[in-house]
């Protein structure tokens, strides 16, 4: 009984801060400390959410974005993963590619947009390209780091026991790097949503990023705040996914 109570509390603590913030914000809005012209009250944001949901607009935006996000995530994540593995394992590809990737990583999407339009036009391809590009790097860096940090002794052992190629990889290198790779995935699950706000400035008619940027342009503070909250919830969700994967695949860490 008491254990269950404790577990319940433990599940609630993480929400304490966000909820406290919301409550304070609502209170300040009610008594006018925060002018609703500048920052709408949570209740107004909630109303906006209801309204947008009832017209089906919000779910449209989210599902469209979700499609772009997942596709981009898959492409970029896999690419980053493979590059990370290659450069982590093979000295030559590391020498050849790492510098280029580190340079590429540092180019802001906003600056890249003209070129992206040039290469991929203004339709879905360019949006998915940007998400993929954004997702690639955290996965790459953490995979690379994970692989490089697998204990050399264990790899040596694996080789001495006749493992090579994919066997060595799946028995020793990958599990050893997994914890770090998951950090990369956790990070990129966030980036996946983040890049959409830039990607969806390219001739988009829907999507959560489009909604946010549109709201900004048209000064709809309630929608801006709503989209910020949605992003935050996505963040939490991504995190839960990452934690779930960690619990599932890193059981051996007690």
């Amino acid at each position, binding site marked *: 009984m008491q254990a269950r109570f404790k577990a319940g509390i433990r599940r609630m603590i993480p929400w304490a801060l966000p909820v406290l913030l919301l409550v304070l914000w609502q209170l300040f809005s009610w008594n006018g400390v925060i002018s609703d012209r500048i920052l709408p009250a949570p209740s107004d944001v909630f109303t906006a959410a209801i309204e947008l949901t009832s017209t089906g607009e919000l779910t449209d935006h989210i599902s469209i974005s979700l499609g772009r996000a997942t596709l981009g995530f898959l492409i970029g994540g896999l690419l980053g993963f493979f590059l990370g593995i290659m450069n982590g394992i093979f000295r030559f590809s590391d020498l050849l590619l790492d510098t280029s990737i580190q340079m590429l990583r540092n180019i802001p999407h906003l600056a890249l947009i003209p070129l992206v339009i040039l290469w991929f036009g203004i339709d879905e391809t360019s949006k998915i390209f940007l998400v993929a590009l954004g997702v690639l790097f955290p996965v790459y860096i953490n995979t690379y780091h994970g692989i490089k940090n697998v204990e050399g002794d264990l790899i*040596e052992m*694996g080789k001495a*026991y006749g493992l090579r190629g994919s*066997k060595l990889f799946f028995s020793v290198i990958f*599990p*050893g790097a997994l914890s770090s790779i998951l950090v990369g995935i956790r990070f990129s699950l966030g980036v996946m949503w983040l890049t959409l706000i830039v990607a969806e400035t390219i001739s988009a008619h829907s999507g959560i990023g489009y909604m946010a940027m549109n709201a900004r342009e048209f000064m709809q503070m309630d929608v801006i705040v709503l989209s910020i909250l949605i992003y935050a919830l996505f963040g939490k969700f991504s995190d839960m996914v990452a934690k779930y994967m960690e619990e599932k695949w890193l059981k051996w860490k007690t």
Partner: protein
Amino acid sequence: MKKDARVPHIHLNQLKKSFDHTVVLDGINLKVNQGEFIAIVGKSGCGKSTLLRLIAGLEHYNEGSISIKDKELAGLNTQARIMFQDGRLLPWKRVLENVGLGLKGDWRQTAIAALRDVGLEGRMHDWPSKLSGGQKQRVALARALVHKPEILLLDEPLGALDALTRLEMQELIECIWEKEKITTILVTHDVEEAVALADRVILIEDGKIVLSKNINLSRPRQKTQQVFVNISEEILSRIVDPNEQNLRLIIK
């Protein structure tokens, strides 16, 4: 090379190895015949593990040569399985999968049998981190033995075991060696263990082989036999060399 001469399984010729300017092995000459059981003894840090790692192809040497069946060893020695001094179980694989590492075919049954041999069948589904020191060592031993390799390299395989378990494991090693005719090199700090198991005991000192003693006793060997005790004492006295006072303390 003469055609009729028996080709040694492992042939070390003037092998020299140094780490950053400290010479560890300095001109090691050793021929190990097919199916021979060699034990290596020597003081801590004398280069026993290094020698084993060289034969396994895990380390580069500076001079000399290593031949396996008359072929110069280049890179990994694929015929050999080495049991490392520090165990090296994969923490993310359960005991059974650790033992089955690198096995082909129906590895599961083979691995279970090997675990049974070292008395840990009941722990096969545990993570290595849940094992005691001696249990880990036995899992590592099982993993090395299960391969029945052509060359078996054991680096202090029984260092963490109590007298009884140790004896059982010695019997196990001897039994597998006899059955499979595996060329075996055992590094141990226990001279009695060396004498009990090996056809030849080799002592390394100052980077050189200073003693190579054939043990021509019948198996299974009785540790209580006088010849056995004499040989053990002879080797021990060679390790301890001029310092008589210490010698007396060790040799009963």
